[in-house]
């Protein structure tokens, strides 16, 4: 059964179809959350919240947009909300918690043979740059899709992406030289 049929059935109240649809998107949802938020714990929470929102809002989805783009919009919005909430309620305890999560993330990266440097460099990018990079490279969205998803002009998306790559390049160079760590 293809994605469009699953969506139609889910919208008509087919619970099984809706669960199947959620299973088809869960990895991509988690991946975006993981790279945007930078740690597994937050990524799990954000991904679950995004899936629940998809489950509740499936009726509002219209076929004009791509389903994956619609889902990624939900994920990126949740991640942005968490960024804002984290900024407002940042404390020492949370810092410690983030550090432990960071260790978990590092373990996960090592387990999956992921480059530590690029991951650290991505985590150092500004939130908007990071989101654009994730959507471009991990979700393979076009400039226009990213612009629609984030409600920003096309040139802004390009600008964010170019600057993000430039910053990543500089950071990676410094890592190779043995400069900045962590």
């Amino acid at each position, binding site marked *: 059964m293809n994605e469009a049929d699953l969506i139609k059935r889910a919208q008509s109240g087919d619970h099984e179809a809706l669960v199947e649809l959620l299973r088809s998107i869960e990895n991509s949802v988690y991946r975006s959350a993981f790279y945007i938020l930078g740690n597994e714990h937050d990524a799990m929470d954000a991904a679950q919240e995004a899936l629940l929102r998809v489950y509740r809002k499936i009726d509002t989805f219209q076929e004009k947009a791509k389903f994956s783009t619609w889902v990624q919009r939900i994920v990126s919005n949740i991640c942005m909300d968490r960024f804002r909430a984290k900024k407002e309620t940042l404390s020492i305890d949370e810092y410690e918690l983030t550090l432990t999560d960071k260790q978990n993330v590092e373990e996960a990266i090592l387990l999956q043979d992921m480059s530590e440097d690029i991951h650290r460099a991505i985590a150092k990018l500004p939130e908007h740059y990071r989101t654009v990079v994730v959507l*471009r490279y991990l979700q393979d969205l076009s*400039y226009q899709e990213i612009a629609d998803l984030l409600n920003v002009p096309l040139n802004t998306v390009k600008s964010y*992406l170019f600057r993000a*790559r430039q910053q990543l*390049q500089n950071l990676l160079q410094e890592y190779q030289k043995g400069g900045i760590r962590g």
Partner: protein
Amino acid sequence: MTQEEIYDLMQRDLDHDLSDVEKQTLQYYLANNPNFMLQYERLKKVSSQLEDLPMVTPPFSLVDAILPQLEQSKRTPATQNAPPVLARLELKQPKADKPKERRRFPVWAAKMGSGVAAACMVVSLFVITNQNDRTGTTTSGGSQGGGQVAGTVVLPSEELLAVNKPDKKQESGDNKQKEEQETKKDPKKDTQQKPAHEANGSTGSDGEKSPAKEDPASKPDSDKEVAIADLPGNKGEAGLPTDKQPLDILDIAKSQKPKNPAATNSNSESEKMLGLFPDQQKKYEQLDAEGKKKALELALKELEKFLEKNPNLEFDKDQKELEQVVEDAIESALEEQKKREQEIKQESIPQQNKDKEDNKEDKKESEKETEKQEIHAGSNE
């Protein structure tokens, strides 16, 4: 082509966004400039690293984790839909409608009520101001605790006996009607006033209406009226008029407005006025009858002028100026009195001389007569 434009071409090439012509242009610059080439290689490496980012997966199935919640929401759809269903219940709609009905009625009623209240206020103010105009110099209970209702003052019966004894003949029909109405309203007042009326043989008013206002020329008993300031508790500090005094002064001035002020009995008014200004009383007592009369006339004229200029007497300054007016009038009367006395003295001196001469002549004549009588008596003997 600028350096920024070349960098832009590099970035777009990474995203496969260049046309063939743009690709050739970029290749041309990259081939001719090793720095551009180095930069391009670095960017390409970053891009490839991003493309090769591992496809991380959650440690456990997120859908399985949220499935209990999904199942719960599936099993109990009524709970999900509960808020809208409850909102549609008929029992709740009247509750929701009730405030609207209540709101409509109170708004209408509030408008009417506020209008009625405003009308009542206006009417009551009108009545009170009318009463104040008519009461004139009302008497006060002072420290003895006479009740005060709507601008009028009710005295205890003893004070009423001593204070107000208006003539029955001077009573108008309107006053009688009003008195009857008041006595109906306040039986206590009636019982207090009855002895006074019986003692004086009159049905006079209860002191609300000044006899001076009715007929300033005929106030035979008004001498016995007590000025407000003479009663304890009504004097202001340092002898200045109290808040009540300006009103009394106004009433005195109004009561003296008739064209022939000389015809009025000045004693009562002077007492009232000087009661308001105790400091001026000593000076006033130095005057003789004619001087008092003139002082009062002068003071009342000046008062009228002053009150036309300062009708409200709101400030202490005005009240001091008012007292100054009375003081000036009394002093001018004193001066006139002194002049009169001097004139009388001057006139009396020549008369005394004449009297003395006359007395001498009389004495001489009487002596002569006695001598004649003695002579007659001698001759008879």
